[in-house]
């Protein structure tokens, strides 16, 4: 193995150690089961390994991985083993759900996928809407709207649960 390969391997080890928790959380929020989440996390880091992007700093690295993970999960949801028959229509879904019951988590998982990356980066990683907008290459107003709508849906869902 060449020195360059060794360096790359060391890099990916460090990148993995720094970000695996974050990538896993984001993927689970899309895929909602452990088996698919593991595959998506693996695919995200494999893509990083293949693309070997030059990260300016750890925030850039984190952003690249979150966006890649989100895209891979969306692709997976879009194309994953769908088969249609006229009656008794079949589609596929995982069946190993989140580890423990949590109303807030249920509400997060039920959010539309387009809000999830922004929600995670804003609330969990503390990114301001402007930075998220730059990362996702969207207008800041769109990201703010997504965050606001996600917040509204979460409140609505959690209020409903408290009343039932």
């Amino acid at each position, binding site marked *: *193995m060449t020195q360059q*390969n060794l360096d*790359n*391997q060391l890099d*990916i080890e460090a990148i*993995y150690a720094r970000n*695996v*928790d974050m990538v*896993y*959380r984001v993927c*689970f*929020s899309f895929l*909602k089961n*452990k*088996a698919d989440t*593991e595959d998506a*996390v*693996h695919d995200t*880091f*494999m893509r990083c*390994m*293949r693309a070997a992007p030059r990260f300016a700093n750890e925030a850039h690295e984190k952003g690249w991985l979150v966006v890649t993970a989100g895209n891979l999960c969306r692709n997976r949801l879009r*194309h994953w*083993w*769908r*088969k*249609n*028959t*006229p*009656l*008794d*229509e*079949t*589609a*596929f*879904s*995982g*069946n*190993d*759900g*989140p*580890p*423990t019951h*949590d109303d*807030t*988590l249920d509400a*997060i998982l039920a959010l539309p996928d387009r809000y999830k990356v922004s*929600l*995670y980066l804003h*609330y*969990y990683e503390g990114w301001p809407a402007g930075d998220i907008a730059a990362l996702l290459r969207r207008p800041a107003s769109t990201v703010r709207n997504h965050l606001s709508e996600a*917040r509204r849906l*979460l*409140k609505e869902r*959690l209020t409903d649960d408290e009343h039932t």
Partner: protein
Amino acid sequence: MNIHDRVVQSFNKLTPDEATKARIHGRLRAQASSHHHSPLRHSHRRLGIALAITILFCATVFAATQLHKYVNWKGEPVPEPNLYDGLSEKDVSVREQNRSWALRVGDLIPDNTHSEYWIAYRISPDGAVDEKFAVVKTINRRFDTYAAFQAAISAEGVLLMPEKIPEGFSLEKAEVSYTLPHILAPVMLDEQKAADDVLLRRYALPPEKDRYLTMYRLFFVNQQNRSLLITCELHNRSSIPDNLRIEGNSNARSVIIDGMDKALLVGGDVSQPSAEANPATMSVIMRHKSVLSTANDQGTRRWDYIDVMTDIPGAGPLLVHLYSDYRIISYGGLSQDDLLNIAGTFH
């Protein structure tokens, strides 16, 4: 607690445990070493798997494309099947409406969980619920070991599988799918209208769900990163295709596989010397026709739920056929003889 804190707390619960992280890390390390030796190899394998998915799951999509063609079990070219052959204009219209409804409803059904599943029923214009027109989502399960997969198939009792992991390969993924019928649903938990013409009912998952296995997929890989995919599908009585969709540049010829009713060898160049490894995609498609006694073989299963059994002419109601199809698709890792040998181990 405010929304911010609740979101953080919930995402914390999604943090993977050390065993999970180690497992993913192990997979990455294994693939990283082959990636460094040959960066293209991995992408070829992924492409192979993607092609296999296309072959398998486009089988019910009857769109014309130059990338595919249709053959019969003798390997002879046949016209593209037409779903609506022999139907009146009115029947075609009804089928189109049904199909369109089913496609739309698929997106409205929530995901199944460990303990419950959903079925969508059509609400007629007069407000009545048409319980015969239902859409269900399959339930998927993955196995970490081939032994666990074998146990699940054996418990199901009708579908066949290769007797062992093909030599030189390791199991990458084993997935099975269950389709639960609406007539099985014993305990309805609640119901809600998802649209004017869609009623969603939520059911408790019955403990006998594992008996209703309708499909499986096995992914294997060898040390050269060549993939092998094996799939199985149980056929609905109303859709047992005799027009087989294969890649447009493939050749196909009939072969005999012990224990199978029909079999077809499909490859880029099937005239090659049989002992020589063929680097191109090559597959075997097989059909197994079981003869079951409804009195003795049905057991506690409700096979009628997906209408899988076909009457045998003149045999009376006690004997029926049950059809299942198998595909073994090799992406360059096997010779023709090796492929046929694997096909011969199904039991």
